[in-house]
């Protein structure tokens, strides 16, 4: 690196990111920079390409064109695991856990990955007490400590979402990507998850990306909103300004806006 990173250097950047499925362009030439300390909400109607955009960033899908850069380094050719190790952390929209392992083991595996301890073959796993303790403290943070010996398949949907967040926290990523973290949760469970996200934002220089449908959530949490519509970036700016813009009113809220 020839330049030193400043607070405005993007933690994550996409340049002309595009993916085509046959004739359909799901994400179309999206260029965007995400800077540390900022929570960016990504909004748009269903099918706008939000989750596909996430999949391109975290590497589950290969881009047809364009680049993904993490702290200035091109990661476009790397598999998901390598991007994770460079600091991209992702929580999934459809809960995606290890269904038969305990909640604690789910988190411990994330902690173990972060500690780069997976290639230790001749130690007994529980000799790394530090990893277990760290996993336990994260479970406490997401209020799942009392369920640490329960496997995800036996947890409620809300608890599974919390565990998903716990895995993300355990990775200590530079970039946190939340894909509809409150989807399908009961009303009384939503604040816990929002608090966790708020908490992550407060703790230092994290870059947070949040795909969310609930406008009140977006308004209260985000520093910036970008709008995707038919795979294209159509608006980008301060929350109040973006929400009020005609293009969002039309594209996202489906309101017919009278044009001058």
């Amino acid at each position, binding site marked *: 690196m020839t330049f030193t990173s400043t607070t405005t250097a993007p933690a994550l950047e996409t340049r002309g990111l595009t993916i085509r499925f046959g004739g359909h362009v799901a994400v179309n030439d999206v260029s965007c920079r995400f800077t540390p300390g900022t929570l960016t909400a990504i909004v748009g109607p269903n099918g706008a390409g939000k989750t596909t955009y996430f999949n391109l960033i*975290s590497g*589950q899908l290969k881009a047809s064109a364009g680049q993904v850069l993490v702290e200035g380094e091109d990661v476009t050719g790397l*598999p*998901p*695991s*390598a991007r*994770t*190790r460079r600091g991209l952390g*992702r929580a*999934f929209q459809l809960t*995606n*856990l*290890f*269904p*038969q*392992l305990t909640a*604690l*083991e789910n988190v*411990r*595996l*994330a902690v*173990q*990955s*972060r500690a780069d*301890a*997976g*290639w*230790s*073959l*001749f*130690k*007994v*796993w*529980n*000799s*790394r*007490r530090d990893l*277990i303790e760290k996993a*336990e403290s994260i479970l*406490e943070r997401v209020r799942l*400590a*009392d369920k*640490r*010996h329960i496997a995800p398949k036996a947890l409620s949907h809300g608890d599974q979402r919390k565990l998903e967040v716990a*895995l993300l926290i355990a*990775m200590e990523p530079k970039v946190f990507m939340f894909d509809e973290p409150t989807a399908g949760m009961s009303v009384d469970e939503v604040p816990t998850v929002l608090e966790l996200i708020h908490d992550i934002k407060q703790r230092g220089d994290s870059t947070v990306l949040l795909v969310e449908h609930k406008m009140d959530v977006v308004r209260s949490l985000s520093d910036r909103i970008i709008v995707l519509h038919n795979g294209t970036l159509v608006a980008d700016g301060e929350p109040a300004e973006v929400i009020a813009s005609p293009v969002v009113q039309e594209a996202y809220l489906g309101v017919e806006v009278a044009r001058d």
Partner: protein
Amino acid sequence: MTSSPALPFDETRRQGGFLSAVLSSDLPRSRVLSVVLLAILLVLATTPFVFSGSQPIGTAAKICVFIVLVASYDLLLGYSGIVSFAHTMFFGIGGYGIAIALERLGPTWGSAAIGLVAALALSAVLAVAIGLLSLRVRAIFFSMITLAVASAAAVLASQLSSLTGGEDGLSFQLPQALRPAFRLLSEPLFGTAVNGRLLAYYLVFFVSLLVFLTLLRIVNSPFGRVLQAIRENEFRAEALGYRVVAYRTAASVISALAATIAGALMALWLRYNGPDTTLSFSIMVDILLMVVIGGMGTMYGAVIGAALFVLAQSYLQVLMEAGSSALAGLPLLPNLIHPDRWLLWLGALFVISVYAFPGGIVGRLRRAVP
């Protein structure tokens, strides 16, 4: 500490002590299972002194070898969720490594070592090649590729008869110290002559024990935990930062190396190696059965599966002979349990045990109250 209620078993609390360290914190967790495992260990450790004749000691040696072979296969199938049909190929490579080296280079420890090292190297290279070529594609393709490679290896072994002895296999001399004529002690110990055959048995026994405990350690290591995570949800493991292809390839290499050692032990014990003792596909089927009967995803299942299976193979005919003659005179029954029908009964036993214990015998025992 959290305020959760005390649980009967908490695997995160490390128990101290020698046993826990040797067993890598993975205790049997069932009284019956502990007793059975202890009994198997004791019998295997004392067979040469307790039983006379060559069949018991031969059976015991075979059990030792198959425990390693089945445990190494369970590392793949049970812990990593990888279905490979090439396991007997690695078993065969170990056997042929020892056989070819001892036959060509003379019956010395040096040539045995060269044979083993060459076999381990070949197995590792093949396992890496198969892994990198096919573990990134869908599981079924990996299984098919292992099947193809294993068949090719079997054909190759029977065609290269100048090297491998073809279908006849290779008989060879062992190093001096392992020959029946060798006497370590001039006087018998506990009424048993301490000869080369006894030394060979204990070589098989202790190497098997060591490899088994190493495999037990590996499946309970941070690495082993990653394998189980990949088995559960490969996509998530990758997203957590674990390189799934690398871990799976490493698992197949470790498994292949252990199988190679098992093959070398088998050849050393038999003083012979051929397609039917290590390379045949019917052994592959036996291994699968032993893993399933003992219990997938637990190393102790390998011990129980191998012990039961090899015992049944060796003694079911004897047992049926006795039963048949005891029932002589009755209609139909003596014919039904005539020793010639032993394969039918072996098959019936497996169907029943798989049906009755879907989680294997160990799974069943661990589910019961300890």
